[in-house]
């Protein structure tokens, strides 16, 4: 029997993406749904993933639609075939869809939140769709919103839309666009262009910014401006902090508002001077 030796292609490409999805699911559990009376889908910020994974570039690649990163090697066409050689010269060939681009497959939606040009929110598409329709139930704008969602979710991964796109590509009328803005799915960006947004997210942003400021204040006021991560997680939160402590900790680590230092007693978070927040 001829033996086939086929080199195992970069399997870490597969595991990375499964990892990102599981990290997202973990972060989703940290989101407090009850706070918003269950009207918001669970929102995770893209930079929270940076605190869980070391390689920021690979996180970006898998979340953001990037068909232009040609300088990395594991992105090549071959990497979507995983070939495993077995004992008796058999080979199993698995083929996976391109693992990066969770957004291109329509699983994940990304939003520009508005308080920071680099802070992007990620929501699973099914959650988003369910919550938006739940919020729209009984209102006159339901039909338009449903039409928008069916157009948006499978294929589009834009963060903002301009008038031309709405009218020509999506075939919406002006009045329908007004309805979408009223329902909160679109917010005004500029004259004639709109951001994609999460309805009722104003409260989320308000609590988030307040909570982030409070947690950063806690780190800053500690002795020497530094605190062990485990100690911070155990601290009692003030009334300003509405989310879970861990949610905020992932946020400040990922946004590099605190420096992470590995010590023998665990991770130390040190406040970084020069923060605007």
């Amino acid at each position: 029997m001829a033996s086939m030796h086929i080199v195992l292609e970069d399997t870490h490409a597969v595991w990375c993406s499964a990892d990102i999805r599981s990290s997202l699911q973990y972060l989703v559990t940290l989101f407090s749904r009850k706070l918003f009376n269950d009207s918001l889908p669970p929102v995770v910020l893209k930079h929270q993933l940076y605190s869980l994974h070391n390689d920021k570039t690979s996180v970006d690649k898998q979340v953001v639609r990037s068909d232009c990163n040609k300088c990395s090697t594991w992105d090549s066409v071959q990497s979507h075939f995983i070939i495993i050689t077995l004992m008796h010269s058999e080979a199993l060939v698995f083929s996976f869809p391109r693992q990066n681009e969770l957004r291109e497959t329509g699983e994940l939606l990304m939003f520009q939140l508005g308080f920071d040009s680099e802070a992007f929110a990620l929501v699973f598409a099914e959650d988003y769709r369910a919550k938006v329709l739940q919020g729209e139930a009984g209102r006159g704008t339901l039909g338009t919103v449903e039409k928008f969602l069916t157009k948006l979710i499978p294929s589009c991964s834009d963060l903002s839309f301009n008038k031309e796109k709405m009218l020509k590509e999506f075939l919406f009328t002006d009045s329908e666009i007004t309805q979408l803005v009223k329902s909160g799915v679109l917010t005004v960006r500029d004259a004639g262009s709109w951001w994609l947004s999460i309805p009722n997210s104003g409260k989320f942003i308000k609590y988030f910014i307040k909570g982030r400021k409070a947690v950063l204040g806690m780190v800053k006021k500690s002795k020497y401006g530094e605190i062990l991560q485990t100690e911070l997680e155990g601290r009692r939160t003030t009334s300003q902090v509405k989310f879970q402590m861990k949610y905020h900790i992932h946020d400040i680590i990922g946004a590099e508002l605190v420096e992470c230092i590995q010590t023998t007693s665990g991770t130390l978070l040190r406040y970084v001077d020069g923060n605007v927040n």
Partner: protein
Amino acid sequence: MLSFLYARQSGLDDPVRLRRAESTRRVLSLELNHNRDVDRIHGNGINTLDIEVIDGRYMLSGGSDGVIVIYDLENNSKKPQYTCKAICTVGRSSRHVHKFSVETVQWYPHDTGMFVSSSFDKTMKVWDTETLKPAEEFQFDGNVYCHHMSPVARKHSLVAALLYSVLAVGTKDPKVQLCDLKSGSRIHILQGHRGEILSVRWSPRYDHILATASTDSRVHIWDVRRASGSLFTLDQHNGDKSKTSSEAVNTAHNGRVNGLCFTADGLHLLTTGTDDRMRLWNSATGENTLVNYGKVVNESRKGLKFTVSRGCSPEFVFVPCGSSVAVYGLHSGELITMLRGHYNNVDCCEFHPDYQELYSGGKDCNILAWVPVLRQPDIEDEETNSKRGGTHAAINPAFEDAWSSDED
């Protein structure tokens, strides 16, 4: 290491492979070495450093006091302890010294007989190294932030691209001025930026490609042979206009762009901006490779001078970040290490490709040399030493037991 040597010797490996592997290992072990020092001449911060390309022996430095110093980096004394001596300086007592801070100095790329310096006193001077007198002087209307001479230019008459800034008051636009060294005149002007131009670089691959970075958040790539405007501008979102607010469309950074560096092969371009980001671009197409370096702290109001390693695989970027120098992997974006040692902000750094050393200068008037750590001597050598009766290398003489008596 031995396996690399054996493979090279027997022809299994390309000679380049050994060199690259060893260079990379050396760069990863950079640290301050108490045996290596650089003479301290400047009385004020050091703004710019340049090591000549031909021998890698002489280094130029320009300071905020207008002083220019030339150092000899080669260690001809037979001792490991070596201070890089300043061979000559254009000090404050010289008649031709710059009146204000020297922002950029650069050796003439083909020999060390000449160097060019530009400064905030609105002049650019071409110096003769022997006599330390300017052979040529170009006057401008505004502060000169940066200049650069093409390292590969052979055909064109050695055009030194000069940028000056004219404060955007009134109708004057900031321009990039190209000056010809052969004839001593100004050749042409590249228009297109709307804010002060903080950095300029010629491509090390093509002698007609030039990149400029300015405070209007844009980076333009020019072909100097063309009469019309720039070839293209770098867009951080790669044309995806939906990602950003409408004012930030088609910008390279969300703040001032103050640093530019081409990689050694000229295929990629790095830019740093005051939005605390560093971006890697494909220099042929202008697309953002989206490598994420994280937060690269950048508060510099002037240009930031950073550098890329040469001859290693993977390549490294050395960026001054506050009072330390950050080392990032070029294509992976991971932070390898922070080189701490300066007492104040670091303004410039320069990589010596032959010895894999890094020289950095900053506001504390020191130039620090970061040298790869030498390999420790093998255990075998230590044993043979002690057999000969010499002191054991591992025990510091201070800890040797010289007082307890043997009778106890």
